[in-house]
């Protein structure tokens, strides 16, 4: 039997199975990634959100923060599940926009006021903090993340065109 015939015989079935295995592993990895996001979100929802709600006591920032975190994780899960496909791009982009939207909206309510309770001489004590500067710092980081997401999209388009 010529060598070329032998190699053809043995190679043919191995190539598709390797691709399938690779794809399967990719799919499993994406599902695991999405599951990890869900687990992290559930933990935050159970332990962090109640703390934020009780600390900020119904202030606009409390709702904004919980909504933003929820939206961030929803897009993260969708992005993980569609990883490697063109669908991933809008989800990743939306995920990068969430912190920017949060920062911009939170800037209007940047003064957090927390009622620390009653004091002895029949009065109340309130703590306030202006997080405006922290929000500006965080906006810079969010913009870096957005720029990276834009490059990711350009890179994806570039690969498809190539």
């Amino acid at each position, binding site marked *: 039997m010529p060598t070329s015939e032998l190699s053809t015989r043995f190679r043919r079935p191995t190539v598709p199975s390797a691709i399938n295995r690779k794809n399967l592993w990719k799919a499993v990895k994406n599902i695991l990634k999405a599951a990890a996001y869900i687990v992290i979100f559930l933990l935050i929802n159970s332990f962090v959100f109640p703390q934020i709600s009780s600390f900020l006591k119904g202030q606009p920032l409390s709702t904004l923060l919980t909504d933003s975190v929820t939206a961030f994780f929803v897009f993260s899960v969708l992005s993980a599940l569609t990883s490697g496909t063109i669908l991933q791009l809008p989800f990743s982009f939306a995920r990068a926009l969430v912190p920017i939207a949060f920062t911009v909206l939170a800037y209007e309510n940047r003064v957090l006021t927390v009622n620390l309770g009653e*004091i002895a001489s029949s009065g109340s004590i309130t703590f306030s903090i202006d*997080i405006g500067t922290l929000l500006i710092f965080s906006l*810079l980081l969010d913009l870096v*993340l957005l720029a990276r997401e834009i490059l990711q999209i350009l890179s994806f388009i*570039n690969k498809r065109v190539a």
Partner: protein
Amino acid sequence: MQQGNSNEDPFKFPKRSLSVAFAAGSILFFLFVASVGFSATQLQFSVGEAFYTVKGENFILSIPINVSNNGLFDLQNLQINTTVSEGGIELFNSTTIVPKITHQSETTFTHNLTVNLPSFLANHQAFLFNDSQLQAAEGVHLVLAALIPVGLDFNSTYDWGAPLNDFSTSNLQFQPVNSTTILASLDIAFNNHANFPLEGNLTVTAFGGTTQVATQSLQLSVKSKDSFKSTIQLSLPTTALVSRVALMIQTDSFSWEENVYAHV
């Protein structure tokens, strides 16, 4: 070779650079937030016992405050503001500013609330006679790490003790002494509920029209939380036509005058 180059992602380096920048920025951001949080926990405020002094016409309430900054950052623009009001109407306010407290240092200062009593009591005469509850809104505001303004506001109530609480005078009693003199007697009583003593004069003056007919003064020295009860007597000539009798209290803190008799 050419094939390999065309497969290379031209965005790989910028993407990696942005990832590194984001990671480094995030680490710095969280380190900053954590160190500010840590510094805030290392701040210690202690408020000493408030004391008052009377300097001339001014009543000064002094609150000694000690700030111990054991954190990593300086404190800037520490402002302590007190506003005292009664029934929603602002009576007086005071602000103390400490420009800077460096880290790992301790500062003690006094927050003074100065009230010019003559001016205050002239504008708010009800406080002379009625005890009251004053609402004090106090605020401590400072800038942490030169970037983050934080504040602590608290409300409390203080009792105001009226210096002439339960002030009462009897009807002016006229009693003839002889053919030329009539003795006019007036009983005066009050409780000094104020935190300061009353030192001054109590004067009763009889007028005939605009002319002063007779006057009598007595020294007033009533300690804080003490009562005063006395009778003041005025010798009037029988020929005099008394149109009104005025009672005047003059102390370091205030002056007050009222007609106790008026002939209609």
